[in-house]
């Protein structure tokens, strides 16, 4: 079931669009904001409020990189794996992160603290390598500083 706040926000989005379906991505974002990921139940809830079928909603949800259709940890680490970061030492950062967290891409730490995902170019190539944790961007990364960064997220 959608929460009151989700319904309120989705209803607000519905006023901005000429057809209900057009609010689908916004609705997915709203629910993900609240719940960190989109469950099958959320797909059905969104479908119902937007008068779409669950298949139609999931068709959209599964298309986009940043709509998570599986549970994620409390914090999502998006490590830029694109070209400038690759040149500037992405591989070492990746290895370091995986060692620190003891997980691979697509996995969540046992304490559900972090999910690690690769991400296409973060658009900060002059400060490569870079990663984002939740809404925070970290640039000019050095392998040695990773554990200190991670420590800020509980």
């Amino acid at each position, binding site marked *: 079931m959608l929460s009151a706040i989700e319904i309120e926000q989705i209803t607000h989005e519905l006023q901005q669009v000429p057809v209900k379906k*057009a609010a689908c991505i916004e609705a997915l974002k709203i629910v993900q904001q609240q719940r960190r990921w989109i469950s099958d139940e959320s797909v059905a809830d969104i479908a119902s409020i937007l008068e779409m079928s669950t298949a139609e909603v999931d068709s*959209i949800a599964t*298309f986009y990189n940043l709509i998570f259709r599986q549970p994620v940890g409390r914090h999502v680490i998006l490590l830029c794996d694109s*070209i400038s970061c690759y040149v500037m030492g992405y591989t070492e950062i990746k290895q370091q992160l995986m060692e620190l967290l003891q997980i691979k891409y697509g996995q969540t730490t046992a304490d559900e603290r972090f999910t690690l995902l690769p991400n*296409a170019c973060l658009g900060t*190539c*002059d400060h490569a390598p870079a990663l984002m944790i939740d809404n925070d961007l970290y640039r000019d990364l050095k392998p040695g500083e990773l554990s200190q960064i991670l420590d800020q997220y509980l």
Partner: protein
Amino acid sequence: MERPLTQHIPASGVALHLKEYEAVGGYAALRKVLQELTPAEVTAKVKDANLKGRGGAGFSTGMKWSFVPANVTGPRYLVANADEMEPGTFKDRWLLEGNPHQLLEGMIISAYAIQATQAFVFMRWAYKDAARIMTRAIADAYAAGYLGKNILGKNYSLEMQLHTGVGRYMCGEETALLNSLEGKRAVPRAKPPFPQVSGLFGKPTIVNNVETLSYIPHIMNNGGDWFKSLSYTADGGTKIYGVSGKVNKPGAWELPMGVTMRELLEEHAGGMKAGFRFRGALPGGASTDFLTDAHLDVKMDFAGVAAAGSRLGTGTMVVLDDQTCPVGFVHNLEHFFAQESCGFCTPCREGLPWTEKILYALEQGHGTYADLEQLEMHTKLLGPGNTFCALAPGAMEPLQSALKYFREDFEQHIKEKKCPYAHH
């Protein structure tokens, strides 16, 4: 040297607030346009300046606008493409974070030119600061009467919305962007009909890049001749250039259109880092052909880079140094493109993962000469027109040029059955 786009952005990068923007002449162009110019005159001025799109394709902006049919009733849309996701590209971020009102003013004038009723900023998800700044800027612009009903008391109204994406490179392609804005899967659309005729929700729509739109107020203020005079070459204006990779001072700079690669690299980017040698660069983002040290004197404008066998693209350069494996470099790119293929047309959906797998095999020392032929085949057959949109042809540009310029590296992988750069 004039830097109209970035002159007012403080070195700290902190965004210009509305008052600050107005203090340096902001929204004067809009005021003038609404008072003095008809929509057709605005378009004519942009056409006259011969402003070319800064998103990568380089199509004439005024021309694009002129394709919007005059006699169609109902809503029309203007969209700022701020879905900057081309690997190696970070120029629009600077404008979005540093001077949001410049973009908004440009959008309002452009919207007026095509008589749009609604405008959108389609911003990529990762630009969290920019999104926050833009949200505030839109609210301020509404409050100041630059947006909403009867702008500045005139008979023109425009609504403005910020839409943040959920991650797909395809959204940078204007028709896929429109699908995404409609809440759908970001797959590209067939052209014709062009968005100018049937765009967002099937209505006339113009999609322009952030840098392009940010230029509009300046062209309104200063005119086409001024715009042309800024440049070193026939393509007018300044351009935001960027450099990333193993250089001393990676960054972005607004420079006259047509600076040479050498000037960019050596003067602005401070040359290669100690111990690294320049081997080549993608001049305009991930989907452009390599240029090498033989091209350092190429003028970085649309025609100049094209003549050298590449594209100006976004004007942000990614440098390949002598200690980075070109095969690994290209593998990284093809991995990106394969992942970001929307899955609609066959050659892109199936061809890109194939090239990615070959490049990976080469990197692992499992490659063969037949694999090189397969790569060549893909660079030829994933060409424009063969695929539904420009993603796969773009993906083939760095690959085909790498095969041309760094062939010995590819062959070395095969001969040595390993990556010669593997110790890095």
